[in-house]
């Protein structure tokens, strides 16, 4: 395949909605269990880090530590939800459950299937963010004037991390190997994207690296600006970075999956 073919526009139709619906129905079966983590996790982190560790940390840029990490907790949840859904989750459906094989025997094409999976991954990120917002708002750690803006932002971030997960699903030789991107990419991002300490605490080259290559940096930045209620124009830079990288990776992920599955 020529390089350009990896980025060509796939023919995705509205049939991908049926694939999204399938995943939504499975999710709805265990709705209580599925809602628990986004509800409980911010509480645990806030208590342990925000209010525990936070007592030993001076305010960051004039913001109390708990308020500093609250937007990061949402961002991390956005990242995990869609990355895991479109990596381990999609791999299991593709390889072990043969769900994709069954679906492409219908008028739904493989491009529709992958698009549906990616949309579902983004939906999970959005659901998590939506559940977390009121929990965090309850502690007064978020400016509720703009809080609803976090929801579409989380969807966009979810698409981005879903596409990243799907690219790995498309090339991984087996399910165990998905541990590599988790260990080498997702976990470092969890720590070094301005999540639990500001980016400017790091050496300058690393700061630039994070801004150029770590998607979570831009999600954290965006959600933090919305959460603080200080919508500065710099958010447009984060937004632009996310939209461009997301578009490229969405194309790549669908074409890679097509290449893997259509033989």
């Amino acid at each position, binding site marked *: 395949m020529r390089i350009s073919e990896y980025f060509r526009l796939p023919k995705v139709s509205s049939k991908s909605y049926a694939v999204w619906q399938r995943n939504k129905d499975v999710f709805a079966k265990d709705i209580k269990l599925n809602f628990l983590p986004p509800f409980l996790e911010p509480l645990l982190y806030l208590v342990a880090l925000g209010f525990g560790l936070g007592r030993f940390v001076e305010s960051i840029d004039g913001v109390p530590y708990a308020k500093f990490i609250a937007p990061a907790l949402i961002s991390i949840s956005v990242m995990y939800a869609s990355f895991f859904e479109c990596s381990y989750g999609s791999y299991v459906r593709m390889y072990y459950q043969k769900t994709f094989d069954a679906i492409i025997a219908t*008028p739904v094409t493989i491009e529709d299937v992958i698009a549906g999976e990616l949309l579902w991954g983004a939906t999970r990120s959005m659901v998590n963010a939506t559940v977390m917002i009121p929990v965090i708002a309850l502690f007064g750690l978020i400016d509720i004037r703009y809080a609803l803006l976090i929801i579409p932002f989380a969807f966009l971030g979810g698409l981005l991390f879903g596409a990243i997960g799907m690219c790995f699903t498309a090339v991984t030789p087996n399910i165990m190997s998905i541990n590599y991107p988790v260990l080498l990419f997702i976990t470092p991002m969890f720590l070094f994207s301005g999540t639990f300490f500001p980016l400017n605490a790091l050496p300058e080259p690393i700061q630039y690296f994070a801004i150029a290559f770590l998607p979570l940096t831009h999600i954290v930045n965006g959600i933090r600006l919305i959460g603080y209620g200080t919508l500065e124009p710099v958010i447009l830079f984060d937004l632009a970075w996310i939209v461009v990288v997301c578009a490229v990776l969405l194309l790549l992920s669908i074409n890679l999956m097509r290449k893997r599955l259509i033989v």
Partner: protein
Amino acid sequence: MPVIVARGLVKKYKDTLAVDNITFSIEEGEMFGFLGPNGAGKTTTMRMIQCVSPVTSGSLEIFGMDAMSHPREIKSHLGVVPQENNLDMDFTVYENLVVFSRYFDIPRDEAERRATELLEFVHLEDKKDTMTESLSGGMKRRLILARALINRPRMLILDEPTVGLDPQARHMIWDKLRALKKQGVTVVLTSHYLDEVEKLCDRLVVMDYGKILVEGSPSQVIREYVGSGIVEAEKDPELIRCLEMKEANYEVIGELVHVYTDNPKQIAEYLTMECSISKLSARPATLEDVFLKMTGRRLRE
């Protein structure tokens, strides 16, 4: 009117030539069988017909449309029973049918009506709310058949629909296929149960190493390739000499000799009377004899 026309169809995987230049056509309403040893290329052919595996070269038209350029339209009229079970194990039996119907854009109430009807058709009403994991192998196969019918297909593609089933379940599936054929559904299938294919298929092909070796109706191919009868006898030099003298069409298979003939009684009499061979039996030829004669008896890896 033919519903499938394949001309010079070729499928190449990286370095395997799985289907090697085959030409065939299948008529509307026919029951058509693809036979052949493991690895012959049957599943590969089915997958090209289902428009899920691209054709390497040659042409493949289904319902008069090109398989490569009209996959959505073609697939909306197909029902597929794959060789490997791929039921959705996140759902119950009933949900499997309803969820599947959405891929065809069947409205919800219509889908529910069809699901109930189809579960009755394959006798799975009692299992409606069971998760598919806890179904037996036969039940899974029946549910897959029901699932393949959810869009009221014009043509059914079944890849070893009865694999691993007990005789009862097998008979039931074949019975259902006959009923569907009566309704005008074209049925294309692969199977290793040759006696069933012989009884049920209007026409068949035998494939091996990606090529079609034999084509015709069961009785036609039996007559053409082995004759109507077979005389079986134990291998013995005297017997071979007699057969050579008579210029009979025979084959040595391990310790057995098969004599292919249109007149088994005459050959049997000749062998008993003139060659004093006593241990022999005459029987009508079957599709299995054609299969083994044409594809050899060596095991495939």
